[in-house]
């Protein structure tokens, strides 16, 4: 470790797990994902073992190829683990669930539908009574400053607006767990900053359990209650950080020395993993 400091890192938690695993809100137990390729097996996720408490905003941060998206897909039921067990609310995950919300890297909006109808798409698809969700759609669109654009088509919106629509769509069914897979990585840096502020504010209103995938360290620390740092080859979780900042999160938090110390620690942890593997791209 390069950046050693004298202050105790009380925000760094031991990577321990609960005693009664299934009692945790989300429990990822000894989970491994291996893909068979022509050049032998590739371990997309070597071993993941962690629990998530209800109401926590948890980021998985790591370099590309560290398996963080695969890990999220397994929790979301979009991929099956090669071995191990994942439970949400005590129930093992075998397939996508109706009480989950998903946001992907591309906004994946239906181009022929309006903003409003795109937000309601999960409701119609899951055959819920649409009338019961009109108020929630309005509330979410107002919280994300999209209400004035409710009748526009995706093509008429900016990239940041489209991603905001996708977040509203992910939240419309009041999910018990929202999964966001690098939702801002296709946006430019300035829009991305705005989106971080927007998401932090939104979180003060919706209070959801969330798993957020990103390769931006500052984004992860700014938004999360907890940051799990992953490394590639072997793909494992190498640090577990409880972010010691109260909500609501303010933009000024990013100037705080403690914020920068945590970001520095995460960066060092990731690069340490890279360095020991002599990765030329590190």
């Amino acid at each position: 470790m390069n950046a050693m400091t004298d202050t105790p890192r009380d925000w760094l938690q031991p990577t321990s797990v609960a005693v009664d695993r299934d009692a945790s809100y989300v429990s990822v137990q000894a989970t491994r994902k291996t893909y068979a390729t022509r050049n032998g097996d590739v371990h997309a996720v070597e071993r993941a073992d962690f629990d998530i408490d209800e109401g926590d905003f948890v980021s998985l941060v790591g370099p590309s190829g560290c398996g963080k998206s695969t890990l999220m897909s397994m929790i979301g039921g979009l991929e099956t683990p090669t071995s191990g067990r994942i439970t949400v609310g005590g129930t093992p995950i075998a397939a996508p669930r109706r009480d989950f919300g998903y946001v992907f890297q591309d906004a994946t909006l239906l181009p022929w539908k309006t903003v409003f109808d795109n937000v309601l798409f999960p409701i119609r698809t899951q055959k819920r009574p649409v009338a019961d969700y009109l108020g929630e759609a309005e509330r979410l669109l107002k919280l994300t400053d999209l209400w004035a654009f409710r009748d526009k088509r995706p093509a008429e919106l900016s990239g940041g607006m489209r991603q905001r629509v996708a977040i509203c769509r992910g939240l419309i069914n009041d999910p018990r767990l929202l999964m966001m897979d690098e939702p801002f990585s296709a946006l430019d840096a300035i829009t991305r900053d705005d989106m971080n502020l927007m998401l932090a504010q939104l979180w003060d209103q919706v209070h959801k359990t969330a798993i957020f995938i990103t390769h931006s360290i500052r984004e992860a620390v700014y938004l999360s209650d907890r940051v799990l740092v992953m490394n590639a080859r072997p793909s494992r979780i190498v640090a577990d950080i409880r972010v010691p900042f109260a909500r609501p999160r303010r933009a000024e938090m990013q100037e705080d020395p403690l914020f920068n110390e945590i970001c520095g620690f995460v960066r060092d942890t990731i690069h340490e993993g890279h360095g020991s593997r002599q990765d030329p791209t590190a």
Partner: protein
Amino acid sequence: MRAIEPDSAARRIGLPLAFALGTLLLWEAVVRAFGIREVLLPTPSAIGLRLVETFPLLMQHAWPTVWESVAGFTIASVLGVALAALLSASGLMRQMLYPNVVLFQLIPKIALAPLFIVWLGIGFQSRLTFSVFISFFPVVIAALAGLDNVDKSLLRLCRALTASSWQVFASVRLPHALPYVFSGMKIATTFAIIGVIVGEFITSQAGLGYLILFASSQADTSLILAAIVVLCAFGLLFYGAVAWLERWTQKAFGE
């Protein structure tokens, strides 16, 4: 003198119109100047005159051609989209049928027209069936391309939302495929007319194809060309109707 804007409506519509009019004038002038006989090449004005004279006859023969092509086109469109949906939904069906569809597409289908007469007789059935047969392929190929070409991430979203295959088809694949389907249908309008005309050439007692053949036997070149003018007008209307339907559907689906 000020130039007209290159993109103005006056230029977009006026320029091709002026060119066509100029060609007709040149045609008229050349035929008159060289004294070309009417049986060889009538003047545009002679064709126009013949069109007016024989208008009731032309309309009488236009009717079977029109309804057979419209019916053939409609059946071909429905069948084409249905087959494309089947091929897109079932991997087994696709593996089994798609290469054969492509192979069939390569056959010069006009050569098969006499077979349809052998099988279905000399009534409208053979012409209608041949018209369906010939205009069906562009719809299948285009519709299948549209159904297949859906963004993978949209399909992933559908899976995450636990959508059924029918929901994926109805709410994602089909709306996405509509522009493709319509481009196939626009090609099919022309093919459907060709199918009927070829059928009428082979065996018929009515229809514009029959009239053209009849006029040819009478060396009535003006009537041949008058019938072709009617055919063109019909083809244009037909294409326009499909284009209008496309606009209407896009509005309904709100694209």
